């Protein structure tokens, strides 16, 4: 590969990171500047949060169920089938709840943001908004960012709860375990540190989903084909970023809390 190609690719990469950082910082900064688009935040919260409820509930329930199903047989080999509830609740609260909810919300909403803003970009609606004296980062990006972070927090709590219930349904009705034992072990094993870990992650993931979705939307070029490309890139990049940052956050919080 000629040096100029590598050079140009490196410059593009660095520029993208710089533009992404600027967009994120400005969107966050706009939270504290007037005008405050409260109504837009509520509209976005409804679209992102309430709209994602069915997929989050279904994903959480069946993940909890399959976790109980798979782990019970392995635990039974060690005579530890009684701790199925513990395994399901720990896994859901610390890892699977936040990560799977984020991946589902990313698939639904990062793509939605990228395509919506991308379409506005290629039809000059974003330029028109600027020309009308309105900052699109304030009007379009900030409400999506705030709404995604807030709703991710609550969707994760819901996913954790439904996941533990799904595990219980599987353990009780399919595996014949005792329900009070399941819930007792599930409850007893959870510490505040685990809950904090599980609830800090969706805040970061919500930030990643919204900023990546908006970044690709606001940088769309090349008509309808460009909109499609932005949509795909937004989902792929946000999903990879969620999983990668989950590792970093887990390591960081295990270091802090010691578990």
């Amino acid at each position, binding site marked *: 590969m000629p040096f100029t190609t590598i050079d140009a690719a490196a410059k593009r990469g660095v520029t993208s990171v710089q533009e992404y950082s600027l967009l994120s910082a400005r969107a966050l900064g706009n939270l504290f500047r007037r005008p405050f688009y409260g109504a837009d935040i509520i509209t976005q919260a409804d679209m992102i949060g309430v709209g994602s409820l069915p997929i989050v509930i279904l994903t959480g329930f069946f993940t909890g169920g399959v976790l109980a199903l798979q782990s019970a047989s392995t635990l039974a080999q060690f005579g530890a089938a009684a701790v199925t509830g513990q395994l399901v609740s720990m896994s859901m609260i610390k890892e699977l709840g936040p990560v799977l909810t984020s991946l589902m919300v990313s698939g639904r909403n990062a793509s939605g943001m990228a395509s919506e803003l991308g379409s506005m970009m290629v*039809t*000059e*609606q974003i*330029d*028109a908004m*600027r*020309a*009308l*004296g*309105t900052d699109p980062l304030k009007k379009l990006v900030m409400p999506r960012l705030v709404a995604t972070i807030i709703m991710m927090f609550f969707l994760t709590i819901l996913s954790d709860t439904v996941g533990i219930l799904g595990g219980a349904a599987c353990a009780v009705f399919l595996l014949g375990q005792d329900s009070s034992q399941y819930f007792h072990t599930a409850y007893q094993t959870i510490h505040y540190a685990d809950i904090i870990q599980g609830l800090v992650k969706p805040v970061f993931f919500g930030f990643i989903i919204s900023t990546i979705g908006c970044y690709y939307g606001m940088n769309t070029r090349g008509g309808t084909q460009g909109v499609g490309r932005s949509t795909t890139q937004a989902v792929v990049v946000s999903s990879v970023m969620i999983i990668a940052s989950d590792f970093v956050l887990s390591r960081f919080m295990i270091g802090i809390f010691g578990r």
Partner: protein
Amino acid sequence: MATKELAANAIDPLSDTDPSQIYPEAQAVEFQDVSIGFEGKQVLENISFRVKRGETRVLLGPAGVGKSVLLKLANGLLKPDTGRIFVFGFEVSAMRDDDLFRLRGSIGTVFQEGALFDSLTVRDNVAFRLTEERVPDEEIDRRVTEALRFVELEHTLTKFPSELSGGMRRRVAIARAIVTKPELLLYDSPTGGLDPITSTTIVELVIKQRDVAQTSSLLVTHRLQDAFMLATHHFNKETNQVEELPENQTIPSTSFLMLHQGKLVFDGTTHDLVNSKDEFIKGYIS
């Protein structure tokens, strides 16, 4: 007083004064040696011209010559590589985004394809800037109806842009641009892609706006017939009609600019344009 002395880059956010009135002696628009390029290709080179207050300037040139880029530079959507751009005495090429947003309250822009917000109704599109300024609903309804009546589309209030024809969308875009009574209007090919009859309707609206409100305008077009219609027609307030001036008479406040290969090759009156000896200009207008 020279614009250079007046130029400032900041607008007091607490001031109620219209930014266009802060420096009343300043030109509406002034370009000083402006150049811009994209991906190594020079698009505009050393462009200098002025738009006086109340004046209409028609920017002509073949497609792809950089006319729309020039308009985006004028309202600060793009920054020049070199040179300075002033609007109402403010140096838009060096202003912070927040100040630019405030200044744009005095500028109305009509985009090439209208650029209406497709998820908003006609009423909400036209009312967009008023809603952002937290104007009371009754006042918004009154001003939106007034603006839509100007473009003869007051019956489309509840329609979405996708339900309108191309010509109607441009007229709504004009209504959206004039609803706040801006001091400067930027028209980016308002008749591009329209049939001759609809184009005439749009140009008549531009003439009506120019003669009724005396708004400074910079209009980009590659259609010569539209440009000459602007120079040879006026709006008669008594008959409420656009009428042609007697032969050999032109509107003195409407003049021309012409771009060719990124350079400004003409800056003058209608008379100068039709009598130009420049080969390119002669070929373009013939």
